[in-house]
């Protein structure tokens, strides 16, 4: 039961990252490998805002989300747009985003150095105990923050004009173009929103783990795994996949072996891919060229 509970905060983080992958994939058909590094950049930028401008946690969160979202737009503008113009094969797009990941990771290394930074938690570090179970306030904050962000995203997608355009493009790109949707703008929006979501995940997780220049690789990969296990390109499925993965990891680490935890995760992934390629929580795969 404790393991189950421990899996929730990390699951919430995976869900956010999975969401960011799914959003970009659905909206622009791109597998963006630099998502994990947006998580890292989010944590670092918030850390710097914290340290040099002494802003509060909420302000650091929002500022960092905004800045990383802007980075997402830059990536879309400088890299995705020329690739689209040249009709590059999908794998080249993936490799270009890998290039973005390498560049941003090493720029972070050059700026913030190789030492792990400690990110102060905005809440008390004394865990709360209920019966035999204990939770830290930070864990609660993570889960709460993740749900807030998901709510905001849901609102933006369902209720605003831009969000509706984004969903239209996700459903049928050609039809959306014919209806007068500017796909360049919707792509930029998807990249910005995804990067900002990743950044938020980074800030929420930062007080639990240390902030390092290569923290993005692991979280990014796990987030992607969660998105695929749930069902890539579908938002509720990505969230479910995130929590599912977090709980499975926590159980596997606690009950079987912590060394093999990740190996179990990846075996599960390959099994899911093999037996249910559309994901655990989706009925059938969306056909995508």
């Amino acid at each position, binding site marked *: 039961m404790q393991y189950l509970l421990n899996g929730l905060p990390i699951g919430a983080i995976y869900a956010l990252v999975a969401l960011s992958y799914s959003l970009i994939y659905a909206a622009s058909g791109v*597998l963006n490998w630099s998502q994990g590094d947006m998580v890292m950049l989010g944590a670092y930028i918030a850390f710097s805002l914290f340290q040099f401008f002494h802003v509060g946690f909420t302000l650091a969160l929002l500022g960092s989300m905004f800045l990383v979202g802007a980075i997402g737009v830059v990536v879309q503008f400088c890299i995705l747009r020329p690739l689209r113009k040249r009709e590059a094969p999908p794998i080249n797009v*993936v490799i270009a985003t890998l*290039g973005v990941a390498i560049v941003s990771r090493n720029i972070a290394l050059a700026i913030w150095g190789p030492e792990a930074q400690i990110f102060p938690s905005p809440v008390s570090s004394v865990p709360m105990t209920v019966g035999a179970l204990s939770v830290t306030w930070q864990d609660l904050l993570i889960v709460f923050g993740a749900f807030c962000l998901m709510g905001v995203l849901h609102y933006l997608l369902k209720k605003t004009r831009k969000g509706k355009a984004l969903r239209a493009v996700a459903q049928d*790109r050609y039809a959306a173009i014919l209806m007068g949707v500017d796909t360049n703008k919707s792509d930029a929006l998807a990249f910005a929103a995804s990067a900002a979501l990743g950044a938020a995940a980074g800030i929420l997780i930062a007080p639990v783990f240390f902030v390092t220049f290569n923290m993005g690789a692991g979280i990014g990969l796990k987030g992607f795994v969660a998105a695929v296990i749930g069902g890539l390109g579908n938002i509720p499925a990505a969230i479910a996949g995130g929590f599912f993965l977090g709980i499975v990891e926590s159980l596997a680490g606690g009950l079987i*072996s912590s060394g093999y935890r*990740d190996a179990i995760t990846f075996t599960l992934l390959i099994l899911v891919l093999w037996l249910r*390629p559309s994901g655990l929580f989706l009925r059938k795969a969306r056909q995508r060229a």
Partner: protein
Amino acid sequence: MIKRVMRKKIILLAAGAAILVLPVLVSNNYYLHVINLAGIYTLITIGLNLLSGYTGQVSMGQAGFFAVGTYVAGLLAINLNIPFWAAALAALVITAACGAIIAIPAMRLSGPYLVLATVGFGEIVRLVLLNWTPVTRGAAGLTGIPLPKFFTWQCSSESQFYYLIFSVVLLGTYIAYRLAHSKVGRTFAAIREDEVAAEAMGVRVSRYKTAAFILSAVYAGMAGVLYGVFSGVASPDNFTFDDSVTFLCMSVIGGNRSIAGAIVGSFMLTGMSEALRALQAYRLIIYGGVLIFTVIYMPQGLVGLAVTVRKAIKGGKDKPASAPAEGEWKP
């Protein structure tokens, strides 16, 4: 016609002679070491080109096969002291089996799903190597992998390794070249272009896909065997996801639709990462930048670019293959 054949022969002879005398000319052991490493990476990249460039199945888990090759051959040689060729053979059989196993789930996948499955495979291999301590010696890795010995000839210096590695690379290049220009190569390309159409034309897609996976696994496995004896030590840290990404970059930057591209890409990236070593963190920033630049402006890699340029110079009527169609915009 005869003239062309002659010229081709002369070029091949000159290249062969250059390869033969290179260790004599390059007296600096460090350079020779880098060249040897590039040779090992060439093998992996050739396998990857057959798999992803020709057949269209992208793998980001080649480091897994590479690791299996190193560990199987290394452990057999260390623990049982069996001769190099036998250990190498066993390693190739096991990596081929791994290739066949990963081909099973890969059969039903494409695009990002396939990429992720191969990433998963690579990570599983690394984590098992890291955690199955009684057999693989865990994080400490293998040390003291014995030097390869053929009857009485012991391979130990950089230049001896050079001849060992490059005879394998030449053999591997020859086999790959013949394969790529045979019915098999064309079948691979047919699968890449349109799987359904290929199936409809009577191609047994699953059989050829499995074959491509096994081939790439064997190439990476052989590279692993050589890497083990060449460096003498190996640990799970040598076979990370980042390494798989590097191999993919070599393949794409060189040009993944030709065997020559594999060679160019491996040598260029190995050379570049050594040359930029002094820049430390900035090295990888440049590396990433080159990567982005390549996929945007020369999607067929350096070899593709060379072909385009040559065609343009010759004034051939056919348009360069990589030029985008003007005025046409597709989302």
